[in-house]
């Protein structure tokens, strides 16, 4: 017990907490609890990223995964519902079967993966060390991740910015730029879908105008 390094024990503890949170997400039905647990999951994985030497990823995950995603999900939850309806067990058996098969196939492939922390594995040996050497020689910035992101692979980062722009544009188009948000109704075969479910004065006023 005493020869286990403390970082390994930290890794184990964080992974155990991640497993507990993930299984809690499966079991719970209150959407508020589920969304908050997603934030907890992101924060725990950010803590593990620090332990895995990925400091840039850790603070991005803490800010974006645990912060912005949680806020977005809370907003969507407030606009929709608070509680997920239960799903019959026999309807879950099919997905349980598929997930088990996929998991077993992935477990079978574990044997071919490099050992944890191996400096000479194929993933760590060639391109990664080349980028570290190139950063030392060509770029004054000490942070290799920043150098690769902004200089060596700058076009990819530009593509990422384009993706964010497209996502923002898509959300604006979906949720309505012209003040019509919430008033639009689908009319398949010429009939009002939600009209007979919750017909209120608001939608009628929208129809007249």
């Amino acid at each position, binding site marked *: 017990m005493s020869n286990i390094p403390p970082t390994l024990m930290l890794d184990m503890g964080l*992974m155990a907490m991640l497993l507990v949170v*993930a299984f809690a*997400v499966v079991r719970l039905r209150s*959407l508020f609890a589920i*969304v908050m*647990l*997603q934030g907890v*999951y*992101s924060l725990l*994985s950010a803590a593990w*990223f620090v332990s*895995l*030497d990925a400091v840039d*990823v850790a603070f*991005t*995950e803490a800010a*974006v*995964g645990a912060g912005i995603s949680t806020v*977005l*999900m809370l*907003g*969507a939850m407030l606009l*929709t519902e608070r509680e*997920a309806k239960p799903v019959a067990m026999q309807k879950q058996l099919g*997905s349980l079967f598929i997930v*088990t098969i*996929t*998991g077993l196939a992935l*477990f079978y492939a*574990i044997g071919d*993966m490099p*050992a*944890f*922390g*191996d400096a000479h594995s194929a993933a*760590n040996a060639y391109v*990664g060390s080349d*980028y*570290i050497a190139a950063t030392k*020689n060509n770029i*004054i910035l*000490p*942070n*290799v*991740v920043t150098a*690769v*992101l902004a200089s060596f692979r700058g076009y990819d980062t530009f593509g*990422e910015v384009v993706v964010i722009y497209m*996502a923002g544009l898509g*959300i604006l188009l*979906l*949720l309505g730029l012209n003040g019509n948000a919430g008033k639009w*109704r*689908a009319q*398949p*075969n010429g*009939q009002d*879908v*939600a009209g007979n479910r*919750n017909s209120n004065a608001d939608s009628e006023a929208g129809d007249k105008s």
Partner: protein
Amino acid sequence: MSGLFEHFNFAVVIILMMVGLYVVFASNNMIKKLVGLSVFQTSVFLLYISMGKVNGAQPPIIAEEDLHGASEGGHDVVAQGAHHAAEVLYSNPLPHVLILTAIVVGVATLAIGLALVVRIREVYGTIEEDEIDALDYEINLEGAAE
């Protein structure tokens, strides 16, 4: 057993990934589905980052003396310092770069998905998938009768 111990990160990450995938498949509620997708996504990030970890290494931020040693290697003292610091191990920065991009793109797709859920709720009055299916079926049936 030692083989599994060397690969414990992959074992745990695969379990986490499958839990996320199960939430995506098995739940009817669309917000819960998106949370499952988010858990799945974060687990894939963990898979990549744990592959780039090097035992006993530092985060990929180059030490001060190492950086200057490489750029002004002419001086004897500094060159000695560089030689000393050349043995510093860094973790692999490439998975970090990849996952930084993936986190941001993941939030963009999550936001689009949530916007779609809000619109579906506006139109159908529910975000449960089976109820939406039933509503679609009913309406199509009635429309065909007319």
